[in-house]
């Protein structure tokens, strides 16, 4: 675990609030000069605390009205196909999130689709055909609380 001081945590808080802030704006928010803030952000990146940046888009405005969480269990015979399953599932563009978990399911996925019939197409053609796939459970996202 990396040793982080209060200033590092303040920087992370500022960037959690708005990941688009530049070093100068982060410095202003936490009371550091631009070069000092820049050095600390660089160090947080080098230490792997900040692993990257992402563009946040409005999926609905881009025509993706439906988000579905999937729980996937590998078939008993599918366990040997884990590597194949993983390689194939992460390459599906509509699949935003793939997590290996312990519990009722082996993997959980977040999938975006244009609408429910589009989701049905993705489920049938892309998900159900994955190597080693067993039980699949879908829960449609209603709202973020």
């Amino acid at each position, binding site marked *: *675990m*990396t040793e*982080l001081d209060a200033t590092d945590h303040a920087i*992370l808080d500022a*960037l*959690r609030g*708005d*990941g*688009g802030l530049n070093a100068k704006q982060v410095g202003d928010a936490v009371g550091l000069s631009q070069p000092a803030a820049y050095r600390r952000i660089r160090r947080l990146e080098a*230490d*792997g*605390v*900040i*692993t*990257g*940046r*992402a*563009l*946040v*888009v*409005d*999926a609905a*405005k*881009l025509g*993706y009205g439906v988000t579905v*969480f999937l*729980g996937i269990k590998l078939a008993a015979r599918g366990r040997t196909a884990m590597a194949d399953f*993983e390689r194939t*599932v*992460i390459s599906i*563009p*509509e*699949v*935003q*999130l*793939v*997590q*290996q*978990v*312990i*519990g*009722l*399911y082996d993997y*959980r996925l977040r999938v*975006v689709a244009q609408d429910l019939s589009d989701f049905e197409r993705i489920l049938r053609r892309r998900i159900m055909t994955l190597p080693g796939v067993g039980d699949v*459970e*879908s*829960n*449609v*996202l*209603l*709202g*973020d*609380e």
Partner: protein
Amino acid sequence: MLDDTDRRILRQMQADPAASVATVAQRAGLSHAPCWRRIARMERDGVIKGRQILIDQRKLGLEVQVFLRITLDKTARNAFDAFIAEARTIPEVTAIQTLLGRVDIRMDVTARDLAHYQQIYRDRIMALPHILDLESLMLVSELKNTQAVPV
């Protein structure tokens, strides 16, 4: 409405969110000023909502991440509202989402270690109102995590 050029810009920005406008313009095959104007318009229209940093929770000393899947007792009046209001007060709960399907709610819980998680689970989660059933999935590894959508 977005045209093909907008979509080309968005694809480049989703693939490399840290790239400068000049780089995005070059990769999308247009000059700097029109590219900048298109990005500004998409930001104004709310198509681009902003940028997010990705943080490795384990590097912050948060080793345990659990996803709870909860079924509520819908015979209780205001079960959803009462549950969500109470769940929001738990600092270790980092996300609450309502679902349509076999379960009603999913929640992300982050903890320092298993002992800490057990304490949160017993003292706070189990005390939440109107829970009928609760399943836990514990994160082993994350293979993909993106906000990007196909454009």
